[in-house]
């Protein structure tokens, strides 16, 4: 177990290095000069030169990369061009809403998609199955901002059940927090539900053809228990895998959804950073999300051990 953990961690290291290299090169290969962006248009040549050497831009690329990575390992993502505050601090301030939105979406999705997919596989070709498959094709195709605005129009403007936009911290009360996150989390969960329901359906349908299902039925196990206990457990590995892969969808969706619902999270921080060409901030957010994605998939691999006792690393 420990050996597996270490080996798996070692395997993520090259991926993280490549990510760091790509993010580093992206800003260094750009046509613009970061020093020029800092000093502004009216700077003298000496001024520009001084800022450039302060930033370490006069050194060779490999040296720059090693120094940059070293700082990275110490949790130093540099400082925002505009607010002059550390990037880690800016990210830290915006993590809560994003985490809340993504977490709630994840819970909502798994609670809806897994049972639906299992039921669709159970009644293969039935009404629920066909409805679910059409819904999932739609879910893949309707962009989050379109669903978001449709939901706002219906539930916030026509029916006035829920607030249109905004975010309330969880510390200010669970109910207002949930009311504010209900529409964004629903919006975000649609694509994700489509994906997970589809994979659950395929995995459970395959599991239902196995011999042990026939055995279970033959010895008189109830249909519900056959489906939920035997078939779903055997289909767990692909379902967990796709939940992990789907986190990438979730991260992309967070950016859009936060913009639609005016949630002050990392997604809106990204858009602000891009609009103001704040490169250190963009770099920091990209790195942050990439590391989260890699870590989530590490956890997913660990879940295999729990989900499938046949897997021994």
């Amino acid at each position, binding site marked *: 177990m420990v050996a597996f953990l270490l080996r798996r961690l070692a395997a993520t290291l090259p991926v*993280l290095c490549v990510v760091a290299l790509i993010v580093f090169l992206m800003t260094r290969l750009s046509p613009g000069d970061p020093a020029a962006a800092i000093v502004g248009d009216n700077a003298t040549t000496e001024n520009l030169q001084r800022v450039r050497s302060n930033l370490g831009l006069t050194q060779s690329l490999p040296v720059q990369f090693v120094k940059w990575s070293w700082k990275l390992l110490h949790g130093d993502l540099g400082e925002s061009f505009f607010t002059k505050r550390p990037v880690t601090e800016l990210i830290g301030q915006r993590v809560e809403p994003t985490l809340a939105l993504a977490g709630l979406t994840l819970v909502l999705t798994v609670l809806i998609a897994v049972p639906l997919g299992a039921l669709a596989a159970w009644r293969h070709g039935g009404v629920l199955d066909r409805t679910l498959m059409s819904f999932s*094709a739609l879910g*893949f195709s*309707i962009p989050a901002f379109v669903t978001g605005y449709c939901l706002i129009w219906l539930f916030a403007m026509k029916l006035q059940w829920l607030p249109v936009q905004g975010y309330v911290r969880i510390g200010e009360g669970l109910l207002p927090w949930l009311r504010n996150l209900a529409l964004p989390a629903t919006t975000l969960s649609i694509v994700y539900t489509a994906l997970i329901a589809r994979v659950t359906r*395929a995995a459970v349908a395959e599991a239902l053809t196995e011999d042990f299902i026939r055995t279970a039925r033959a010895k008189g196990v109830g249909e519900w228990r056959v489906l939920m206990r035997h078939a779903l457990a055997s289909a767990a590995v692909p379902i967990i895998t796709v939940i992990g892969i789907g986190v990438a969808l979730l991260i992309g969706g967070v950016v859009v959804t936060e913009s*639609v619902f005016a949630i002050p999270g990392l997604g809106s921080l990204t858009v602000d950073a891009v609009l103001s060409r704040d490169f250190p901030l963009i770099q920091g957010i990209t790195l942050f999300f990439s590391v989260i994605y890699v870590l989530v998939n590490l956890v997913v691999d660990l879940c295999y051990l729990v989900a499938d006792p046949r897997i021994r690393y």
Partner: protein
Amino acid sequence: MTTMPPTSSAIPLGPTEDAQPKPHARRSVGKALLSNGATRWGGGVLLILVFMAALAPWLNTIDPTAIDPGSSNLLPWTHGEFTSLSGETQSHLFVLGSDSLGRDIWSRALYGARVSLVVGLAVTALAVAIGLGFGLLAGYFRRIDGVLMRVMDGVMAIPAILFAVSLIALFGGTLPVVVFAIAVPEIPRVARLVRSVVLGVREEPYVEAAIALDTPTWLVLVRHILPNAIAPLIIQATYVCATAILVEAILSFLGVGLPAETATWGNIMAEGRSQFNQYPHNVLAPGLLLALTVLSVNVMGDGLRDVLDPKFNKRKG
């Protein structure tokens, strides 16, 4: 498809498993595509959209970037007059109304379809071409494989939208940059697919025979290995295309894609969102058009998969 060599059933991903004798293959695939409801529906809707985009100048449109403060915020299906900044007035039917600057939304939507389709096709061509090259190299040359696939893993670990957004922030929101920025995150997916096909067939007797006959490596790749990848590639390409259209709209909507005056579906929605409570159709109309387009590409992809990938058919049972 027709040049696919007969293979054993050991291929994990190849569509060639149930390959029929050569003379029948082409006709039956064509027929199957036409008789498949999904490809017919998806392809039909797409064809209509392509025609509408191509014929945009003749479909009751005016200059999609022209503004007329006098006819701002018109409701859909309003007969009005459009006065350009140079003072020429023409009577015009605002099919989908107008935005806060008086631009005709119908015109912007039709010209926006051009952008969406061009981006979709260009991204697909770029991602498939590069991904195919990488996949062939990684699958066939063991030495390149390790390094190349680690790089691909790294690219895949960066969320696609953030990757695109960073590239556009650095290089500016022009069409080539947007296409490139959307294509790069798709390359690893194509490369992985091609690589798995290559790994599946590289030990096949006909490949070994070709190598034994001193066939140049590039010819082995192109003539004996590449054909196995074509069917899965076509299927994958439709999904890349759908993603590309969607991501382009998202980028425009966030205000980080093509310049705001360019007529794209995302830009129309971005402009309309500040007045969403009064004029929801400014956001919803281009949004539905976008959803319809992406849906028809996806449906066509599902249909192609049903026809071209017999293994999946069998599994679906």
